[in-house]
């Protein structure tokens, strides 16, 4: 977790724009616990994880909007969510991820 925060600081120091995504809630099976971090930059480079790889692509895509708008978003992924099937969180879990720009 802190490894992702160290990456975030290093990227900010290089002048990159960075979004920090944090797992804030989980239900059922989820490979990344609450507090897990994923950092994403404006080129789509990323480090860390918020799931076993199921929803990262969607979070990375949303991060670009967050970089542009500067507004944080609370994202929800789960089996009972149409988009989640689209991005593939079919492992039976449900997670909420808070994604915010580092300013």
């Amino acid at each position, binding site marked *: 977790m802190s490894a992702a925060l160290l990456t975030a600081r290093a990227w900010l120091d290089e002048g990159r724009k960075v979004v920090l995504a944090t797992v804030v809630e989980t239900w059922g099976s989820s490979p990344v616990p609450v507090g897990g971090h994923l950092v994403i930059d404006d080129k789509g480079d990323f480090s860390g994880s918020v799931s076993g790889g199921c929803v990262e692509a969607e979070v990375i895509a949303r991060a670009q909007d967050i970089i542009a708008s500067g507004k944080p978003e609370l994202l929800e992924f789960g089996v009972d969510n149409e988009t989640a099937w689209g991005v593939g969180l079919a492992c039976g879990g449900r997670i909420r991820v808070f994604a*915010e720009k*580092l300013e």
Partner: protein
Amino acid sequence: MRRETLDKLLKARAARRALVLVTRLDGGGEEIFAPGGGGTGHPHSGEITACLRTGRGKIAETGAGEIFVQPFLPAPRLMIVGATHIAQVLVRLAREVAIEPFVIDPRTAFATPERFGDAAIVPKWPGEALAKLGLDARCALVCLAHVPDIDDEALSVALESDCFYLGALGSKRSHEKRVGRLKERGFGEEECRVIHAPVGLDIGSVTPNEIALSIVAEVVSALRAGDQADGAS
């Protein structure tokens, strides 16, 4: 998150200080609390205290929307006493699970960078090494030297510390002898029961690598048992 907040979190982590971050999930910003200061009297001081105890973050409902209360605890450390073959593997496995290893051994022929690469090596007697490094509640200690003078000195320091795990290599028989020696140093039978010996989860380990795996598994188990002591989901 503000850059200033990120810097505070990373600074506290480097200094092995715990902090709690409270984030408003409606995008209304964040606040940082240090244990024992600032948090008391806060409408969510209960959640702040609880997350420090469990080590787990949690969403709390407030009249003005949801907040996420997240603890940032010092990184767990593993003090490895005895720069042996098992220690060489243990250093690698501990790092893989984000536990920071330190290797302590007064025998300078064992505690060498050639054997341990860039791992933190302290070629001193355990008493001196542990006084320097400190043993807090986020530290585990395992004795692998199999040299009574070295292991006993480390255990004597660790038994009086807050460390969350204490293990010592050796058979049941050699552990009985060790407990006998610790009693001579003034420790009671009951106190010595916290020492995991034979060390490691019982997975039928045979090789040094397998023993290292069983030790790191047992340390993770102790760490997570502590995290969940509050019955958090």
